[in-house]
């Protein structure tokens, strides 16, 4: 019997340790979900503000908000949290550094 996908051992109770990737995904999701909830009110009044010529204020705040968010995505992406299969192989430079230290 070999361990199944996500490192699951086929025999025994299903309530055991599980792949941490699912946990990371749900953490990233919470950020985006809260952000979606916060953007709904702005989106709902955008048209009215636009009609009285105040749309620029909302557009600016929306853009600022999204830019902060995009920075978060870029950070997650760089850290590799968006990759499902993460490479744990250490690069040669890092290996050399570790051996030195």
């Amino acid at each position: 019997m070999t361990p199944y996908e996500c490192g699951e051992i086929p025999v025994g109770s299903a309530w055991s340790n599980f792949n941490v990737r699912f946990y990371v995904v749900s953490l990233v999701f919470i950020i985006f979900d809260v952000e979606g909830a916060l953007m709904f009110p702005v989106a709902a009044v955008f048209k009215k503000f636009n009609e009285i010529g105040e749309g620029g204020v909302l557009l600016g705040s929306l853009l600022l908000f999204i830019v902060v968010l995009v920075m978060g995505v870029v950070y997650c992406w760089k850290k590799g949290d968006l990759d499902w299969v993460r490479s744990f192989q250490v690069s040669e430079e890092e290996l050399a550094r570790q051996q030195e230290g």
Partner: protein
Amino acid sequence: MNETIVSYLSQFESSEKLIASINQGLGFDATGIVVFVTFFIAAFIMVNLLAAVGGLGTYAERKISADIQMRQGPNRVGPYGILQFLADGVKMILKEDVIPAASDKVLFTLAPLLAIIGVFSTIAVLPWSSGLTLTNLNMGVVYLIGVGSLVGVAVFLGGYSSNSKWSMLGGMRGASQIISYEVPVTLSVIAIVLMSGGLSFNTLVESQGGWPHQWYVLHNPFTFIGFFVFFIGMLAETNRAPFDLPEAESELVSGYHTEYTGMRFAFFALAEYVEVFVLCAICASLFLGGYKVPLDLGTGKLFIEKMGVPAVIGKNVGQFLQLGSIVTKTIILYYVVIWVRWTLPRLRVDQLMTLCWKYLTPIALFNLIGVAIWMYAFEGHSVWELLASLGGGHGGGHH
């Protein structure tokens, strides 16, 4: 002000007369009770109709898949096998209800109920016509996204409580997939809300027009992409192929509902098919003009004023035209969903996550920014209106 189907019915004289006669018969003011009973009956009919639609969905799925694979499909029960879903339902009820001994029994029984509740609560805000809406909640979109998330909880609970490795894997995959794809879907919905300036479904639909060029999908390039983002996210949220990893039969037997039998399994299956139908209807209302009919036929003004039809008949004919409009769009989308299922191969779990987080979410964010800038720069005019004002040269086209 929340409009309901009751407020639509109460504009006709006959309903006033009915309430008056009931009041007279009972001897006290029973308007509240009558309204409640009317609303209850309407909700009851809607829920049962949707359940029947879910059943017919399984039939359509099998018949269309048979057609695509050049088979016959179900053809024994009833004419063209159309009663197959009733036979399946009877079989499901008669099956033994097995609850695994090692499972978490409370959660195991709760999960299918949550799936059913989550899906059937969404029909409360679906706009089938301008009158036939159970309730036009003034933040219907937020309600819908919130209630729709219950299905994700149900999938995860079903997988977790079964205490089986296959169920556990299926439930985990299902939960992560559903919450992941909720992000691009929500972002493309926000873009539509931004354009229509309201959160209720009637506002969203009424701000579009009857002709295809007045629909939001063809409003500007960003919403055109947004439509496809929404559609792909919709497929993934309902666990449809090519995103049916939670129930990938070649590796997980049946995924999160492996351990379910009888009626509980039927609840999961029914919830899935009804959810596909509901999401197709939502997609039609958000992007494809919903219940709007060309030439403003939906309000019945043309019949009443030009053709001299009585107001009661004219208005109701308009309602039926609107109903036909949205149901046609929904069924076409439903067909596309089934077609996609039998055309594309299943994705791998890492491809699934890459598609969501590295493609759809950035595209949806880009779309949202694009729509906001478009609304600000062109004051909400669509591409066609701008082209008309450019070409015609008489300023603002037909506006």
